């Protein structure tokens, strides 16, 4: 029999929230959720699930929610809530089920601060007739009164709740991870490090799974590797720029971040490698590809090869101390500029070859916020574009694009970099989008 649950969510990155919740539901085979009831404007989402186990699976790694509660009732005032709780068909059953468990009460307030006497409020639930011990440290059951307020003005929180929910806490979300991976506290980071919250959300939408392989072809300082490692994947990264990978020695590099997080068994390696000249053997199944390709703003887009091939004619024959120069330990190969569009074409092609059917590719793409220029999303005939979630900045935005590998029979729409590109994002960025 279906049980009613209340998901209490955070009101940030709300346009990523449904994608996260849908992806996690699919990951755990939960099909009963009616996502048409999800409202980006509201932190509350009522769903029906088979039971607590499903609720725990679904929410335990969510970043954009706070928790999930077994729904006991609601009301516009506390009195209405009490009436509503006692009128629910499941009330007697719930009361009976948890009667002897130790318990405690918690309060959550959305957009307001309560002036009410919390002890008196708890006492007003006396009709629940719980016989278990009150235990503030390790209660078996936690009951939560969630209050929604209308703020008095933009920056003055409300004082009288306009709606209240009551429920039994089933699972807190993974929001503590946002603190854990906060860049401010990360030992090794750089100018291209990606913030913790959206990197974790990206890993959830990409469905990074424990015991699988995740690859970031533009690893930089390893922000997405950290997120993937957090969700239990064996992570491997590469970057054409060895400086970021090397970090500042053994005490401050990507590996030291993993040691800091006590997750170094999830970190495989980072390779100095040009993604377009890839060395991962072609029959290696990569379950997930998650990355933030270089935009050409903080980091140039480069691949191996000579910008001016004429200058390098015959250079392969240069010898130093009787050894070919290009085979020496200290040889530094030349690189040439490359366009973001071509790089994204390569990325989609690579994903279609390496991901298992159903595997996901997720990456971030920047766009200028011009009204008169249509943003064209790269497409590949084997890949289904599942999500396109936009994060707005002042004059530009970036979007998380998530694709599912459907294989050669999918016959999806396709386009190529040269036809998508109207103007170079880098040029527009440095001209301040004017």
């Amino acid at each position: 029999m279906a049980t009613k649950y209340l998901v209490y969510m955070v009101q940030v990155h709300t346009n990523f929230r449904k994608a996260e919740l849908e992806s996690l539901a699919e990951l755990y085979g939960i099909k009963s959720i009616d996502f048409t009831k999800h409202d980006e404007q509201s932190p509350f989402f009522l769903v029906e699930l088979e039971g607590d186990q499903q609720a725990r699976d679904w929410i335990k790694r969510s970043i954009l929610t706070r928790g999930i509660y077994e729904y006991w009732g609601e009301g516009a005032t506390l009195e209405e809530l009490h009436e509503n709780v006692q009128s629910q068909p499941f009330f007697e059953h719930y009361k009976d089920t948890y009667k002897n468990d130790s318990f405690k009460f918690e309060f959550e307030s959305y957009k307001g601060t309560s002036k009410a006497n919390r002890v008196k409020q708890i006492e007003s639930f006396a009709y629940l007739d719980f016989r278990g011990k009150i235990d503030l440290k390790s209660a078996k059951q936690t009951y939560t009164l969630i209050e929604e307020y209308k703020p008095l003005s933009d920056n003055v929180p409300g004082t009288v709740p306009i709606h209240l929910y009551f429920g039994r806490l089933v699972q807190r979300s993974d929001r503590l991870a946002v603190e854990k991976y906060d860049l401010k506290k990360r030992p090794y980071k750089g100018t291209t490090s990606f913030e913790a919250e959206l990197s974790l959300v990206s890993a959830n939408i990409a469905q990074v799974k424990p015991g699988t392989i995740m690859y970031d072809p533009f690893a930089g300082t390893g922000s997405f590797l950290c997120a993937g490692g957090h969700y239990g994947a064996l992570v491997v990264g590469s970057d054409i720029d060895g400086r970021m990978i090397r970090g500042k020695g053994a005490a401050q590099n990507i590996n030291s971040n993993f040691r800091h997080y006590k997750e170094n068994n999830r970190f495989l390696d980072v390779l100095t490698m040009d993604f377009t000249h890839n060395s991962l053997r072609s029959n290696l199944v990569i379950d997930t590809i998650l990355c933030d390709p270089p935009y050409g703003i903080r980091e140039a887009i480069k691949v191996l090869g000579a910008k001016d091939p004429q200058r390098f004619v015959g250079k392969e024959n240069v010898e130093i101390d009787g050894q070919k120069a290009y085979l020496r330990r200290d040889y530094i190969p030349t690189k040439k500029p490359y366009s973001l569009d071509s790089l994204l074409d390569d990325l989609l092609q690579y994903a279609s070859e390496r991901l298992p059917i159903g595997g996901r590719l997720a990456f971030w793409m920047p766009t200028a916020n011009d009204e008169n220029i249509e943003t064209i999303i790269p497409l590949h005939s084997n890949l289904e574009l599942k999500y396109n979630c936009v994060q707005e900045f002042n004059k530009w935005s970036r979007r998380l694009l998530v694709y599912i590998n459907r294989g050669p029979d999918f016959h999806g729409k396709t386009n190529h970099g040269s036809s998508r590109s109207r103007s170079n994002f880098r040029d527009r960025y440095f001209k301040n989008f004017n």
Partner: protein
Amino acid sequence: MKFLTTNFLKCSVKACDSSNDNFPLQYDGEKCTLQQNNDIEFNAEFLTNILDRVDWDAILTVAANLGNDSLPREKPVLGTSGDLSEDDLAVLRDLHTLLICTSIVEGQMQCKNCGHIYYIKNGIPNLLLPPHLA
């Protein structure tokens, strides 16, 4: 660079993809400095999953390159995960020591097809190519 990574790396040169000799790379045992990191946590289930992805013949070849000829000729067959015997766990612990805890800090590896040499410096493999091979 962890031993396990040697099981994933082929030559970067695209022309070598049509050859069967571009994987695994040939490791020069004389020039490779190995390191043992014992602070990496052992996780049997995790390792069982990863073992599915491992090309065992390549493990044998690279281990031999580095002077270890004592591995079993066939990939160890384990009980279904969650139901690992003491023997399975002992095998997995050995594999953990080899694949995850052993790393090449300095050294070089070569493509058996084109002969290109790649270096491992400070534990990081460099797979970049000169322009005439890119």
